[in-house]
């Protein structure tokens, strides 16, 4: 239980980089990635925000609309100015791709963008592979910096490699990226606060310098990160057998969610809902942006004892074969 180094568990970091950047990543071989263990996704984002404030004081962060609410708190407390970019298209309950591309083009060159690598929170709406390639291309033209928040690798599609596709596209296109990783959901380590922050640098020397500065930011915040979750992660990922067990379990979790999406949609359609519920299965990950209004949500709570956020976001993780019919019925009742 001796203190970890300020940058955290070396093994956990190594395994995390392989997961995000690819087992055979040249960037790992060339030691170009500055990486530290962080306090789950929140801690990783906060370290990056503080790093931005300290070394890129003129930068700001573009955050999608909508996003996980704590993103706003993090960059605000780090005193980095925020802007938003278009993301969700309410009418289609999908991606506002045109709006997104416009905002990317109109942002000043060299802007910093927060991108959800997969399973966008709260909408569940992700760009397609094609769309990611276009976004990457545009980023190159504008010299924007992509910061990926990847909180659901493996948990979205069931396949960690597939869920990292956006990041891999950007890496192929030669971007230098930042990445926040969390093991809260995909390893169920929620309260252990296990995560990683990485920044791809120009070369090894720069990576060493950047890492040293990330450590300097961590030291007066918590000195060094907690060991327990890090040990669990590194043991699982560095043992081929255990890793396989994990891959099976994370696929199991993702499959259950995907199954519930299907079931919810089918139930609603069977009930004869006049609305389209395609988005329930188009969206991915833990959350479904149902499109319900706050008033409809309030009715779900008061009349049906169904609890969800008033922006209409359903956590699909809370849906089971036992309650999906009840849920569909309730939704149908308040939306028909």
């Amino acid at each position, binding site marked *: 239980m001796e203190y970890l180094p300020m940058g955290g568990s070396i093994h956990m970091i190594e395994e995390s980089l392989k997961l995000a950047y690819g087992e055979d990543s040249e960037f790992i071989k060339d030691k170009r990635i500055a990486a530290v263990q962080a306090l789950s996704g929140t801690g990783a984002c906060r370290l990056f925000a503080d790093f931005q404030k300290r070394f890129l004081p003129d930068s700001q962060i573009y955050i999608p609309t909508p996003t996980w609410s704590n993103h706003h708190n993090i960059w605000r407390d780090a005193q980095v100015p925020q802007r938003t970019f278009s993301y969700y298209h309410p009418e289609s309950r999908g991606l506002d791709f045109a709006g997104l591309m416009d905002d990317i083009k109109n942002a000043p060159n060299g802007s910093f963008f927060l991108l959800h690598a997969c399973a966008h929170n709260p909408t569940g709406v992700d760009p397609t592979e094609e769309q990611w390639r276009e976004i990457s*291309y545009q980023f190159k033209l504008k010299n924007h910096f992509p910061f990926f928040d990847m909180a659901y690798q493996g948990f979205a599609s069931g396949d960690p490699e597939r869920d990292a596709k956006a990041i891999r596209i950007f890496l192929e296109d030669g971007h230098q990226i930042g990445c926040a990783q969390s093991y809260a959901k995909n390893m169920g380590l929620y309260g252990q606060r296990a995560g990683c922050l990485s920044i791809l640098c120009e070369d090894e020397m720069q990576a060493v*310098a950047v890492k040293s500065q990330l*450590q300097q930011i961590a030291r*007066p915040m918590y000195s060094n990160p907690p060991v327990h979750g890090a040990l669990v992660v590194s043991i699982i990922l560095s043992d081929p057998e255990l890793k396989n067990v994990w891959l099976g379990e994370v696929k199991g979790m993702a499959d259950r969610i995907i199954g519930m999406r299907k079931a919810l949609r089918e139930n609603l359609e069977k009930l004869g809902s006049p609305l389209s519920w395609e988005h329930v299965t188009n969206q991915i990950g833990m959350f479904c942006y149902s499109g319900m209004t706050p008033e409809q949500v309030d009715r779900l709570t008061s009349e049906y004892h169904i609890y969800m956020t008033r922006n209409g976001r359903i956590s699909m993780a809370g849906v089971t074969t036992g309650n999906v019919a009840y849920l569909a019925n309730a939704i149908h009742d308040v939306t028909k």
Partner: protein
Amino acid sequence: MQNTGHITMALAVDASRFEGVPMAPPDPILGVSEAFKADTSDLKLNLGVGAYRTEELQPAVLNVVKKAEKLMLEKGENKEYLPIEGFAAFNKATADLLLGADNPVIKQGRVATLQSLSGTGSLRLAAAFIQRYFPDAKVLISSPTWGNHKNIFNDARVPWSEYRYYDPKTVGLDFEGMIADIQAAPEGSFVLLHGCAHNPTGIDPTPEQWEKLADVIEEKKHMPFFDVAYQGFASGSLDEDASSVRLFVKRGLEVFVAQSYSKNLGLYAERIGAINVICSAPEVADRVKSQLKRLARPMYSNPPIHGAKIVANVVGDPTMFGEWKEEMEQMAGRIKNVRQKLYDSLTEKDQSGKDWSFILSQIGMFSFTGLNRPQSDNMTDKWHIYMTKDGRISLAGLNLAKCEYLADAIIDSFHNVN
């Protein structure tokens, strides 16, 4: 839609965004351990380490902690997020330990407690709170103090200044200087005090001196801010080591207290501690707690479970609590024995008549030897003894077997090096 494919962008790439990022200086304490590791001499001794070692100079997990972890594994509890303020059973246990379970302030609901990331995390939350709600206040810190205190207040953008503390002439407390500086500070300053076992000097005020400090702090309407990293580890008694904090609280003052379980439960890397704010009324405590939570959320969302459960289990079970107290007494006892042996060795070997009794009067893991920079370097270069350059040695890294060797080195460095 555009056809982008896999085109390597032949665009002018700007100079790297990170050109302006310099290499950070090595950590003054970590550097010591690294140099120690690289040293091949059989005689080498690491007295830089701020972590407890057994007589065999090995790190130690407390038996009661192993017991608690086994229990936790058997219970098989889940790993769901804790609330932002942390594990309720831990928060209750930690406040009880600090203040005494029967303390009126606890019964009255006047204590806001948040589980946080050990001592550092607790201090940082408090610093962030000070910056937000007391933007004109400054923090007074002892000269010297734990190196990270300054970093914490700097990063939280809270101004600080030093009060006199260590007197190199007496190798003791400059109490008059301390009082004068605290008195001279602007009203409403935050005074950072080490609850027990001052780091790095090992020099603590006496009970009478604590009373006088409380008088001055009360008079100047300063806010007492305790860093309690060694409760139970200093004297061996949890209650005795908390007496300074309890004295202030008993006076009805509002007090900040940062706690850590790194040393006294050996939970170093689990990062378990708490920030406590003793307030004038329960509704004040509620408000303060709510704002501490707002500061914690964008830092780490909620604190890590593991260490909190260990503490709660140990403290919550009378048998385990008793075992913990015993193990803690043993650790504190080993340190005291080592101090005695070192003192005896120094007194026996040193012919100059120098008074080495400060070794016995200092308390806790550390001792400020009074060695200056060149003398400390001599300790390392000639004797392969690793310590921090301010003359601090960690007695936790010393055993009885090495006391004579250490005494020789200290005497040599003190008398033969300028």
